[in-house]
């Protein structure tokens, strides 16, 4: 079971959190012109890399804050966790 340090609550076991996927995916701005391809890439394409992966987690059974985790997808080692805007 992963141990994740919520930037608001501190270290907690994984079962308090839910996963939110690749944090590098940025939602295009509302109302802004965007090509079909760029939009579809946003919706469907993922880096899916092996190694350091920036990802979102949600402290659902805690403070209910979303935050970012830098974690190795090869070893599951967590390098750091930060608030979303950090």
């Amino acid at each position, binding site marked *: *079971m992963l141990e994740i340090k919520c930037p608001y609550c501190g270290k907690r076991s994984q079962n308090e959190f839910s996963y939110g996927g690749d944090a590098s995916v940025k*939602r295009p701005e*509302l109302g802004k012109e965007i090509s*079909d391809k760029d939009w579809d890439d946003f919706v469907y394409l993922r880096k899916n890399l092996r190694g350091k992966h920036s990802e979102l987690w949600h402290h659902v059974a805690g403070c209910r804050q*979303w935050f970012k985790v830098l974690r190795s997808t090869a070893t599951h080692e967590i390098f750091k966790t930060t608030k979303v805007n950090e």
Partner: protein
Amino acid sequence: MSQKFRLIKSGYIDREKKISFKFNGKKYFGFKGDTLASALLANGVHLVGRSFKYHRPRGFLGSNVEEPNALVQLYNGAKTEPNAVATTIELVEGLVAKSQNCFPSVSFDFGAINNFLSKFFPAGFYYKTFMWPKSFWHKIYEPVIRKAAGLGVAPLKPDPDRYEHKFEYCDILIVGSGPSGLASALSAAKNGAKVILAEDKPRFGGSLLTDEVTIGNKKGKDWADEKITQLKLMPNVIVKNRSQVFGYYDHNMMVMFERTRDHIENPSQFTPRQRLWYIRAKEVIISTGSIERPLVFGNNDRPGIMLASAAKEYMKVYGVIVGKKPIIFTNNDSGYDTAIEFKKNGIDPLILDVRSNSESSVAKEAKNLKINIKFSYGVVNALGYKKVNSAVIGKLNKEKSGYDNLENISCDCICVSGNWTPTVHLSSQSGNKLKFDDEINAFVPNQSRQNESTIGSARGLFTLKETLEEGFTKGYDLSKKITGKDLKTPTPTSNERIYEQHDKFWCMPLPKKKNYKRCVDFQNDVYVSDIELAVSEGFRSIEHVKRYTTLGMATDQGRTSNLNGLQLVSNIEKKIIPEVGHTTFRPPYTPVTIGTIVGREVGKHYRPTRKSPMHSWHTRNNAVFVDAGLWLRPRYYKQNKETLLEAAKREATNVRNNIGICDVTSLGKIDIKGPDSAEFLNRVYTNSWMKLPVGKARYGVMLREDGVVFDDGTTTRISENHYHMTTTTAQAVNVLSHLEYYLQVVWTELNVNVLSTTEQWAGVALAGPNSRNLLSKLFPETDVSNESLPFMGFKQADFFGVPARIFRISFSGELAYEINVESGYGVFMWEKIMEIGQEMNIEPYGTEALSTLRIEMGHVAGSEIDGRVIASDLSLEGMLSKKKDFIGKRSLNRTAFLNPEREKIVGVVPLDKKTMIPEGSHLVMDENADLPNPKLGHISASCWSVEYNNPFSLAILKDGNKKIGVKLYALSPLKNKSIPVEIVSSHYVDPKGKRVRS
């Protein structure tokens, strides 16, 4: 003939407490402190089981978890336990065990015919045959093979025992209480660290229980006992026996099971059988010791052939001698310990040592004791079908490729010692990539990947002196790092026998013209010839060898066979072992009871049950409940002997004619506050929200970014910056996370907060023509007229002293209201409404009637919003604002979504106006078309329309708009039904929506 192999004294068993047990129907006696294995051996019983494939007679190879042969079935009925390892079962009064995988008995087993035909069943034989004729595999061959395979018999009744979970945190978890584990626990605990010391066995001390050593001025075992007592008294230490750490998971999460019940004679009713510990440790010290390897020779799997270390343990711990005419067959010095122990107990052993000589202190001790030692000798073949009775021994030639001479000598047991394999399972599980240690001919841990340290013989350190030093140092170093304290415990002096290097020779060659079976993996019947065959057929990777021969895949996971198998492959391939590599170590270390892993999440506690505050009222009033996710909701309120359909019709009719009350508490409710709330709603819903006045509700649809409909519901503006959102029961949790995601991650500029209030409000729907009339009586002080509280209106009002919210919204399509009060007043509200509504013929209605009402109105619900439809499929395109952007809008211009012939929601009526169309039926043009028959759409929901008194269904139909009036077939091949139907509008009742506004 009771316990005639029990020594007069020695051993750590309690001779005062005699215990009776049954094995294969026969009654035996043992002592408290025995294992089933030691008690059987005390009674001279060696034959305990049959091998997996050839049903060869088998006895005890080991004395602990390494045991591959002695699997037994414990007890009968619901409490039966298959595949229990006899060497690890503590004897309790009344224990009942029997042999497995044999018929009619372990002594006479029909399956043993396989052994005589074994020539035809080499490794992988089943891949090469049983292919003809085609249908025979599943019908004939497979059932026979299945019946022959398997070991124990599974219980078929629910497990009567309970299992518990415990969560712990500690500074240092130490796995194994041998000398290195004890030493590190002591020095870490004394230096202030919070320590957990876990020992798999009932007794602490590991090798100190059996080795002739002294520490300080005490015997090894006495030192261990004293230190355990000390540790138990320390407040920062948890000491656990019967507790096996079986898994090393991510971020130093260690998982351990503790056996808490089966060894107790009269456990209390609530004593759990086992307890699972999740332990998050800052540091983990692995001091799991090592396991002796067998030597391989002809028929080396016969009962009576066992590890030398096991024979020694039976003598020293249990006071049992495993034979009176023993051969000790070894390639190293540790086998001599066993010989000396025999000798001390008055039995003359014969030592066969494949080495040409040994000058170690222990060898000298043996020589001084006048033990007969034959160097350059080994066992070539063992004889005796159900128990070894003699052996062919041979003097090895110089190259050890054959024999100078062979002779036959009688014996009643053969104790084998092929050197030691470190128990590296946990180290490997932690991510530590093992390296091969050429000196000990085994894998040892290398670089730690987590906060893990492997010490003692688990990393190939075999002298007590070094082990103790390492233990004390490691405990001190790690504790200092954590506690910052600096109290060092000195390492005591110690005395031990000195061993010399072992000989790497381990597999006896076949004499000329002999083709003895030489066993590598005992339980799975993998022999030297099988591994040779696999390699010769091109299965050269060790993983291929393992899978083709099943080497190491038995319940003992190859603890005594993997390394021998590897050595064999490396010999055949003429590669060094590290090039061959090893198979992966995965949890669990030994098989773990499923109940232990599951814990208390069983039966009704499998998942939580969510109940509305009015649940007790529903129960008292004959509600029949239905699972809606985790919620239990009244499906209908049963009257007399009516069926579900009859009840649904009655309840729905009463809504249409009078008034009904429905518990809608389970709907998701989200409180939304903040100055940007309107803007936020405008982005998450597809329709416009900027102009919703205070005191008004609006229906909204949410999409996922891929354009698919996510959820729907109403949101009400309570005050300027305060909204109350409702979601479907199914999506309540997901919608909240979704909103939080957009607020916290995407649109951080918006000043909005969201909070789930699902459980804070009890909600009821009042629906039917009488509902306003009733409402006026429930809220006499409040103006509930159509003008003051119009459709989609909202008011806060006083409900007999309780603050309430009134929403004029309708799912049933009738004039309807929803009332919310704080949860604690739910029953009060419900009962008051029932009381006052009685004169207007109020009746409660459940989800079935609710479905009926919404279906005939053409309102969509979960069976239509199934995560695969877009808004226009549900005729909700009018909800899609053209003026603003919203979540998922950009996806809506995809080719497939713009297809004018896309699916559309429609109504479906059977032509005979009688036959209910089963949900899940498909609509087709031609009921008799060739398969695959093109499907035009499917029936998503069906009801008996109470308005028209005939069946009515909703369907999602290709090009549905253009098919109104068309006649199709609704096919349900599963129910053998073909129903001619006509497509109609989905708005079957009150298509203009007059009633809700009336």
